[in-house]
């Protein structure tokens, strides 16, 4: 199998898996007062320090969560609630049009259920945000903005955003800035303090850790109202018994991914560039999406004119090649990507897109397999799409 969907999830690193199994064998609730509890707590705190150290945060700024979606929800809703509770007229959220659904739907929920106003920041044809648009938004409404949220790097088209510039603009207006860095950590340099953001989402399974564990880095001076109430763990912001084994494995993976980032990025980007070049040769009319320079090293995203992405996925899947079309609704129906639509693509182009993402286990053989299967798949998908007769 050629697994070209590392942005969906990537295999666990051996050292993370071993750390998980070893820790999971030990009994102990990190909140317990006895020796077993103290041992578990020590493991958690050591992990917190490791994560903080490699991501440029203080240990007290690391809040362990059940993964990226929870971290995003906690940041968006939690900071919104806390800031509005402090001042009732602060009920505006600023977000980008290309966020992951974990942010997008949380923002929509605030609009629908909490009466929040939303300022949506547009992107250019490469999917890039313009800090000047944020500056204009905050100049107009800054006093009433509870939180700004904009991703570090886009999960679909791979475009890396000017996060530090955006965070600086937010800081000028004293507005907390959250960034979903799920796709960025381990792929590009990420430093919490240096970037100037107030909150940052990271998750385990995109960088070689386990699924279901992640963190929200939350600056000490930023309050967040909890989503989960209970035992008061994690600064009272995230109750729930700590997943000691998951946290330990997560920390091992984060440390390995961040420390190895440069070497990894150079290797994967070279392979990605080869993939892009060979796809272009095989299918000359292909459109390469996203920012050509400021992009994730493992991401290659294309539109195949005249094809439907879900047909291509089916055909490539049958040849043992795993890739992604973007999002699907709960019934499993492929949807046109909101990211591509926000970048100005029409519905047909948005539906004709496929994402290939490389990771730490990717090889040239994976690229070879894709190139061997792609032309025939494109040919068939075109014939299938041509049947869609306009009525």
């Amino acid at each position: 199998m050629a697994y070209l969907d590392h942005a969906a999830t990537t295999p666990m690193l051996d050292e993370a898996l071993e750390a998980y199994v070893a820790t999971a064998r030990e009994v102990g609730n990190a909140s317990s007062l006895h020796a077993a509890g103290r041992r578990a707590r020590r493991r958690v705190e050591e992990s917190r320090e490791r994560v903080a150290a490699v991501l440029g945060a203080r240990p007290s700024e690391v809040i362990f969560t059940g993964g990226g979606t929870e971290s995003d929800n906690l940041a968006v809703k939690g900071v919104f609630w806390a800031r509005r509770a402090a001042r009732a007229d602060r009920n505006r959220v600023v977000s980008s049009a290309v966020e992951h659904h974990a942010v997008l739907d949380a923002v929509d929920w605030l609009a629908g259920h909490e009466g929040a106003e939303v300022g949506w920041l547009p992107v250019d044809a490469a999917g890039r945000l313009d800090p000047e648009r944020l500056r204009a938004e905050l100049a107009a409404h800054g006093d009433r903005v509870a939180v700004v949220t904009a991703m570090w790097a886009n999960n679909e088209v791979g475009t890396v955003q000017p996060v530090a510039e955006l965070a600086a603009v937010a800081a000028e207006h004293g507005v907390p800035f959250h960034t979903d860095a799920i796709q960025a950590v381990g792929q590009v340099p990420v430093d919490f303090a240096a970037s100037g953001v107030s909150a940052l989402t990271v998750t385990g399974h995109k960088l070689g850790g386990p699924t279901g564990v992640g963190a929200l880095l939350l600056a000490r001076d930023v309050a967040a109202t909890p989503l989960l109430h209970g035992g008061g763990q994690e600064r009272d912001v995230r109750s729930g018994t700590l997943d000691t084994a998951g946290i330990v494995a997560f920390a091992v993976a984060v440390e390995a991914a961040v420390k190895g980032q440069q070497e990894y990025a150079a290797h994967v980007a070279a392979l990605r560039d080869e993939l892009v070049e060979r796809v272009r040769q095989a299918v000359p009319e292909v459109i390469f999406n996203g920012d050509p320079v400021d992009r994730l090293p493992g991401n290659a995203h294309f539109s195949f004119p005249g094809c439907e992405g879900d047909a291509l996925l089916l055909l490539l899947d049958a040849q043992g090649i795993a890739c992604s079309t973007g999002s699907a609704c709960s019934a499993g129906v492929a949807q046109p990507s909101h990211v591509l639509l926000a970048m100005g693509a029409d519905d047909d182009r948005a539906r004709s897109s496929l994402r290939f993402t490389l990771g730490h286990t990717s090889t040239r053989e994976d690229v070879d397999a894709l190139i061997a299967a792609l032309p025939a798949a494109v040919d068939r998908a075109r014939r299938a799409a041509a049947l869609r007769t306009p009525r």
Partner: protein
Amino acid sequence: MRVLAAMSGGVDSAVAAARAVQAGYDVTGVHLALARNPQTYRTGARGCCTLEDSRDARRAADVLGIPFYVWDMADRFHADVVDDFVAEYAAGRTPNPCLRCNEKIKFAAVLDRAVALGFDAVVTGHHARLGADGLLRRSVDPAKDQSYVLAVLTRAQLDRSIFPLGDSTKAEVRAEAARRGLAVADKPDSHDICFIADGDTRGFLAQRLGEAPGEVVDALTGAVVGSHSGAYQYTVGQRRGLHLDRPAPDGRPRYVLSITPVTNTVTVGPAEALEVDRVRAVRPVWTGGARPGGPIECEVQLRAHGDVVPATVSLDGDALHAELRRPVRGVAAGQAIVAYRPDPAGDVVLGSATISD
């Protein structure tokens, strides 16, 4: 051979896919998303277009170890089946949406896409036999036989269709599903029309066609005997729900004899006036052998699960004529007439056409 198994989430299509796997085909499962808004369609066990059905289909595919995808056919389904259904009622006819779905969606839009993508055939869980001789026959289970709603398929469509269940009764299919560990083994059968959420066809039509009050007229006397709020709400042969103001002079029940959209009139009369001994139909499809040059003796069925009557059938260009050996009541325009040749190995579908009058 690569085949595409259409999986509704029900027990029949799951077992059909399982048998295709067992027969050695390279099987891919596809669930058709037909609802624009799944919540508005029938929920749970009764429908074929809900989120639960899509999950059931996916689980069956998991158990069989085959790839599974959801294909969005909502727009096509809406245009070719739902809109057609409404338009047919508006024109005073009584459509069969399952038949139309087979003709336009499952064995057209889906089959064409499958072929373009490199598949050789479509597998469905319909209860009908289609053997090596290429003839479509009734299922061995007369209660579940679906040859009537498949009779509209052309030779080219049948040549790319596989119906693995035709030799089994429904009870056998359920038992096999349980044996294979398919969770849908006990799932109740779907009934009625999948896109009418509450089963209220009149309400569904009223919502789309609006109120159109008109008169109910007695065929014998010409007298106005009642009123209606939309002629499309009636079907030829209907007895219940006429709400007539005046009883018939002879005290006997009256039935809908005809619907005239132009005047928005529903005509009622006694049961014997419903009797028909000749049927005209249009757009014939003939798959049970060479198209006949002259009249042939056969049996015809005039609605789903309807009685079978001996008849003489002849084709004339784009028309089909049938002389029935004994009169039949409640023949509605828009339904299919299906001609069968009796056969001990399963009655053979000769052809079908859409009843015009």
